[in-house]
């Protein structure tokens, strides 16, 4: 904060620091032997030293550990010495009863420091080098004490009193238990004691796990009433029964609030957070968690924690940002807006430990970040126009302040915004004063602007070495390449001869470039030590390997658990990077889906679901599940798909407009269509349409899908003219918003409608148009199905076209059999059989298997799908063939199956009424 309002955070002397001083004194007591009195071995001595180092490093805290916490840590470190250490510590502390004692204490401290010429000290004497870490700490403490006013000394004295009193009241219970233990086994071996400790820790670990599970459960299934009760009954609610045990004996004094805070902080129980760094880390972790779990993150409980945190550290403005995030993901617009503004008003964008101080002398705050966040917020709430306005301002301000990083991010945000919202709406907004790209001019279409923006932002990110941004840009570039040809689709003149196709290679290239990020992070992990997880990790490590620590004291592998390694944690890959890499897999899955390679799409989705489930946000994870379930539905039929859906539903909270809900509707619709439950289909379709235009914004993808399904339902109901009308208007919309991939499938649907209505001639151009779309966008599977439709059209034009039809089908077969679903291959088989049958030159009796084999295949597949209409057709054809062959028994069998399907189709009306009434 550039304003001169804040007091400099001084190094204040506290009871905790006094006890550290006492410990340092023990560590470095001036004696003549190499291993001073209480220690039995050098390693023991060193261990205390390392522990003290870690403690002194984390002395700029918000919350300091209380005496009992310190003692319990000492117990872990000190091993056999712990009795002596704690006794000495407590007695020394309680002997400080008047200000004069403190004066004397700090005078003594001066004694253990070596003189300025300590270089020439005797070999075997332990004297603290004044320039060492511990020495510096001690000197700082002494200095801080000397600077204290008399009132300050009085405060220190009273605080030490409180500090000891609390510890005694909570320690006594433990001591008693210990005494009992040792009373039973006076001659207990040290190993036994360690085992005992092991047991205790195992128990704690179990408890931690249990609690973790409990909190997880809560966070997913917390419903409103519970939240309300949390609000009403204040903090007590989220102290689950187990933590009562943990809090036993904690005195409810003025420190009670901080005790609660500690408890709230981490579900892991035994660990406590202390340093400024750790709080920041905690907040960052929570921010990730909010993003990950979205609205299933508990609103009020976290709000309470934040409130307490704010009370303890009013100058830690990050809290406001977390509040903003919290309300953002709970769709509370006003509170989000309010908190966002508050955060940036206070912090001026230059707070938090991911902040790198600007190199220049720019001390006037970095409010452009505020604009960037505000823009993202508007985007999140579905106000694209406002978002664009704000982001435009962000571009201008960051140019003014020459904040290139922010500019790069803003450009990325804008391009993201442009690619997400429908294109026709932006044209008015991207007005003349817009953008750094004024040189490009405004004559370009929005798509082209987007392309230019993407390129520009990618270049900027690369030159600034913002790896994550580079990767993200690569991904959005891939997305762009996937759905856009680089030239306008219809262009005349000399350029018309150019290749009008999307380029799968460039998509793959972009995806691969994005993927490279992970390897780069492996090489230079040190740049990311600021990730919050690390700063809280070391204390967890302190506890975990306790058992082995004592057993293998001088083993070098122990290094991992050493508290000394606080800052030098072996860095893993930060969560945000994992998320990015994961989303590259998601992109791949989508790309393959569009290009029509089902197995590859499935593999990528599976990789994502197995490898990146931890790092992914809940909506991404849900999306992957959706893809997998859809795959099941297409290739294995509905039974398995619905079973899988059930699992997914349990895994993800089925909130309104989640992926899972949409998937459910899609599956229901398709099954209803196949089974002939048309009313139900229409109802489901309508629901999907409602989801598409929610209050916040219109989801174009969902909207097109809904009306596509509407047209399909109408087609199934044999209302051809209506279906054609719907499909036509849908095509117009797709054309208007440049949804070209969707256009292809709409054209195909139109062709089908015309074919079914008996106008094969009218259908032909549509099928051909769809085919050319598919070609230019490399939509291979769709192309295969368009070819199939084309064959069907030829076939219905008369028996003299069977040759053409047959050759078309045979051309498409490899694709269909390799990647197509049950329905598609069933249809292909039936059409093939029909071609043969209608060919006047073909005689069944000569070569019955040519017809029978595809029909059998088709009937199997269609039965799995419960597609009554087509299945009936297959059996009908089969019966005819058997009739011709004179195999009456088999004919009767086929006829019976035919009848079954027809009856099922006709009964569907009744069943449907039943379903609807339920």
């Amino acid at each position, binding site marked *: *904060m*550039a*304003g*001169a*309002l*804040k*007091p400099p*955070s*001084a190094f*204040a002397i506290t009871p905790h620091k006094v006890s550290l001083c006492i410990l340092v004194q023990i560590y470095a007591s001036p004696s003549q032997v190499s291993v001073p009195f209480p220690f039995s071995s050098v390693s023991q001595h060193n261990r205390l030293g390392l522990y003290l180092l870690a403690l002194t490093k984390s002395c*700029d805290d*918000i919350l300091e550990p209380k005496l009992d916490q310190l003692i319990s840590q000492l117990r872990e470190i000190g091993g056999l010495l712990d009795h002596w250490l704690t006794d000495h510590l407590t007695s020394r502390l309680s002997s400080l009863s008047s200000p004069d004692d403190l004066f004397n204490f700090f005078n003594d401290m001066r004694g253990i420091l070596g003189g300025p010429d300590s270089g020439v000290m005797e070999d075997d004497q332990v004297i603290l080098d004044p320039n060492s870490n511990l020495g510096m700490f001690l000197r700082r403490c002494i200095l801080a004490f000397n600077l204290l*006013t008399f*009132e*300050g000394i009085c*405060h220190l004295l009273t605080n030490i009193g409180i500090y000891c009193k609390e510890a005694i009241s909570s320690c006594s219970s433990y001591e008693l238990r210990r005494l009992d233990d040792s009373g039973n086994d006076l001659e207990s071996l040290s190993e036994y004691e360690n085992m005992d400790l092991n047991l205790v820790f195992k128990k704690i670990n179990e408890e931690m796990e249990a609690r973790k599970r409990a909190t997880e459960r809560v966070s997913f299934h917390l419903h409103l009433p519970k939240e309300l009760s949390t609000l009403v009954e204040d903090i007590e609610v989220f102290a689950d029964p187990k933590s009562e045990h943990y809090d036993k004996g904690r005195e409810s004094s*003025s420190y009670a609030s901080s005790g609660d805070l500690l408890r709230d902080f981490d579900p892991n129980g035994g660990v406590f957070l202390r340093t*400024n760094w750790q709080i920041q880390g905690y907040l960052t972790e929570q921010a990730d968690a909010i993003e990950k779990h979205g609205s299933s993150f508990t609103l009020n409980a976290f709000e309470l924690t934040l409130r307490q945190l704010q*009370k*303890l*550290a*009013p*100058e*830690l403005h990050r809290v406001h940002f977390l509040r903003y995030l919290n309300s953002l993901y709970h769709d509370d617009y006003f509170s989000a*807006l309010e908190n966002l*503004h*508050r955060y940036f*008003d*206070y912090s*001026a964008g230059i707070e938090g430990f991911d902040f790198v101080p600007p190199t220049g002398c720019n*001390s*006037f*705050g970095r*409010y452009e970040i*505020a*604009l960037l966040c*505000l823009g993202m917020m508007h985007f999140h709430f579905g106000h694209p126009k406002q978002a664009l*306005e*704000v982001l435009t*301002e962000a571009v*201008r*301000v960051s140019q*003014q302040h020459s904040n290139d990083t922010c500019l790069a991010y803003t450009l990325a945000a804008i391009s993201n915004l442009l690619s997400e919202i429908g294109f026709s709406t932006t044209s008015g907004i991207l007005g003349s*004063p817009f953008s750094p790209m004024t040189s490009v001019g405004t004559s370009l279409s929005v798509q082209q602007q987007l392309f230019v923006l993407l390129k520009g932002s990618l270049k900027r990110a690369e030159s600034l070495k913002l790896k994550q941004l580079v990767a993200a840009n690569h991904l959005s570039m891939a997305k762009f390449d996937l759905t856009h040809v680089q030239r306008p689709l219809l262009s005349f003149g000399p350029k018309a001869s150019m290749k009008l196709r999307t380029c799968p290679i460039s998509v793959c290239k972009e995806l691969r470039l994005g993927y490279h990020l992970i390897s780069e992070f492996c090489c230079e992990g040190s740049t990311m030590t600021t990730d919050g997880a690390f700063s809280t990790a070391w204390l967890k490590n302190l506890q975990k390997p306790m058992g082995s620590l004592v057993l293998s004291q001088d083993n070098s592998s122990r290094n991992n658990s050493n508290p000394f390694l606080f800052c030098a944690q072996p860095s893993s890959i930060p969560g945000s990077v994992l998320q990015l890499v994961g989303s590259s897999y998601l992109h791949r899955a989508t790309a393959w889906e569009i290009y029509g390679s089902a197995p590859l799409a499935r593999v990528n989705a599976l990789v994502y679901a197995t490898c990146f489930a931890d790092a992914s946000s809940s909506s991404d994870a849900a999306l992957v599940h959706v893809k997998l379930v859809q795959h099941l539905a297409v290739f294995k039929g509905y039974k398995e798909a619905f079973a899988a859906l059930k699992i997914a539903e349990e895994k993800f909270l089925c909130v309104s407009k989640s992926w899972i809900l949409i998937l459910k509707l899609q599956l229901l619709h398709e099954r209803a269509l196949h089974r002939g439950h048309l009313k139900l289909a229409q109802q489901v379709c309508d629901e999907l349409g409602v989801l598409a235009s929610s209050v916040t914004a219109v989801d174009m993808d969902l909207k097109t899908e809904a009306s596509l399904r509407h047209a399909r339902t109408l087609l199934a109901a044999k209302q051809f003219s209506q279906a054609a009308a719907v499909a036509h208007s849908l095509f117009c919309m797709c054309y208007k918003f440049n949804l070209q991939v969707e256009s292809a499938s709409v054209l195909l649907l139109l062709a089908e409608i015309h074919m079914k209505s008996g106008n094969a001639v009218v259908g032909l151009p549509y099928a051909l148009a769809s085919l050319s779309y598919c070609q230019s966008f490399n939509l291979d599977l769709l192309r295969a199905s368009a070819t199939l439709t084309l064959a069907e059209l030829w076939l219905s034009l008369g028996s003299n076209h069977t040759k053409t039809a047959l050759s078309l089908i045979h051309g498409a077969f490899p694709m269909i059999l390799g990647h197509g679903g049950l329905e598609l291959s069933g249809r292909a088989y039936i059409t093939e059989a029909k071609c043969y049958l209608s060919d006047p030159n073909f005689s069944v009796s000569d070569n019955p298997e040519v017809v029978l084999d595809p029909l059998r295949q088709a009937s199997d597949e269609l039965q799995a799908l419960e597609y009554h209409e087509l299945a009936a057709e297959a059996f009908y054809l089969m019966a005819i063939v058997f009739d011709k062959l004179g195999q009456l028994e088999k004919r009767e069998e086929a006829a019976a199956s035919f009848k079954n399907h027809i009856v099922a189709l006709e009964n569907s009306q009744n069943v449907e009424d039943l379903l609807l009434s339920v």
Partner: protein
Amino acid sequence: MSSKESCRNELRTAIRQLSDRCLYSASKWAAEQLVGIEQDPAKFTPSNTRFQRGSSSIRRRFRTNEITSTPPTGVAYVSTPVMEEDEVIHGDFYLLAKSYFDCREYRRAAHVLRDQTGKKSVFLRCYALYLAGEKRKEEEMIELEGPLGKSDTVNRELVSLERELSTLCKNNMIDPFGLYLYGLVLKEKGNENLARKVLVESVNSYPWNWSAWSELQSLCTTVDLLNSLNLSNHWMKEFFLASVYQELRMHNESLVKYENLQGNFTFSNYIQAQIAKARYSLREFEQVEVIFEDLLRNDPYRVEDMDTYSNVLYTKECFSALSYLAHRVIMTDKYRPESCCIIGNYYSLKGQHEKSVMYFRRALKLNKNYLSAWTLMGHEYVEMKNTPAAVDAYRRAVDINPRDYRAWYGLGQAYEMMGMPHYALHYFRKSVFFQPIDSRLWIAMAQCYESEQLHMLEEAIKCYKRAANCNDTEAIALHRLAKLHRELGHPEEAAFYYKKDLERMEAEDREGPNIVEALMFLATHYKAQKRFEEAEVYCTRLLDYTGPERETAKNLLRGMRIAQSSFPSMDVEHFHP
């Protein structure tokens, strides 16, 4: 309302009782009101009343409608029986304790009363303990300025006091004063609902304790809360309501209440000051200045509310008066937040912003919730071009009281200065939401919309319209409206606003380029409309001015004459079909 005489008697008893319990500020307040009641001229010598009479002429000047002292009928005021004193037995200890208390030796006073059980003694003991705790708290706050601005100092007596008072309250062993203290403790502990209840009980059984009323007032943050209070009718309630209304920014209602009260308490300085503050909020600066001058004449050593006076002087740019005021308050009491604020204002007016900031910071050191000091300091930082600091200061003001429209306005201004007009709009919106009658806020917002980055002229026009509707003293809005309409190609509207602007400038006798511009536009506009007579009027007026416009006007006139003379028949046809 009870008669003046009974008011007087009630107050006299109350003052005795209040000061006996060491509730000094309440007793000060009561005494001020007692003297504020108009004396019966028959009983007093002219020398007594002279001081009251002297100023009444000025007062009457601004009394627009003479208010009769009879209150609206139908309101029955309960007469609360004056409390009987309960103890005489341990009076000696009480006397000792009270003298200790008077010497500010609170703990000693409490210690003397440790075994006393009378209600009065218990109250004084608890009150002394409370004050001792408060004093220690204040001291500690200075002593411990921890890192990260942590100030978790609390009054250490609160817990034990709450325990004791709640037992007393349960056993019904508590008098209204004890209830007041209980309410105070509860409020400090954050238990606002119970505090409100207890305070209501206290003021209902003993209405003359103004301190209890003001605590209650600070707990009434919304109108709904106010309406939910179950208060019995007493004339003290009127004071309370007036003050609450003012705090809730219902200035007109508050003003009516105060003017009603002035019927009985004609010479109350307190009421006078409150009226001044209400009028200040309504931006009636002239009257406020007169009232404060009057007030200072009667009560020259007053520091309370003088910061409002200094604000008025600042707005009116009265250098010497402001310096005089600053000098006077600093001689009276240097270490009052108001004094520091006044000096800060003075330096700000002189353009010495660093010094001004220093004094505002001193005021904030004395009272860190002093709202206007935060806002004013923000203004200073804006002047010093230190926008982040300004933003911080304003934000603190807004967090103390989210209804402070000045601070919202300041935030908007700061962001606009940094070239972030879209971001600033949020703050301007907030500010006009809380103060929709202030034209300056609307104009600021309009200018923000007009800025070249946003260029949202339609919205700007809407804002200017609002500004023009709420008494835009600087007459910016009309001119801008006319100009904007002209730029947007709405000649009719532009002509309408130019005309209005012209009328206004004529009424206020203003001169300047705006008049020429308006005349010029109107003349050409009417000429284009073929309304030659009007056009001629404006052209001839233009002839009074020098400069190129004059020549243009001549040309226009000439052109019109030619047009009229060459096609008279057509014109006749045109106009009189």
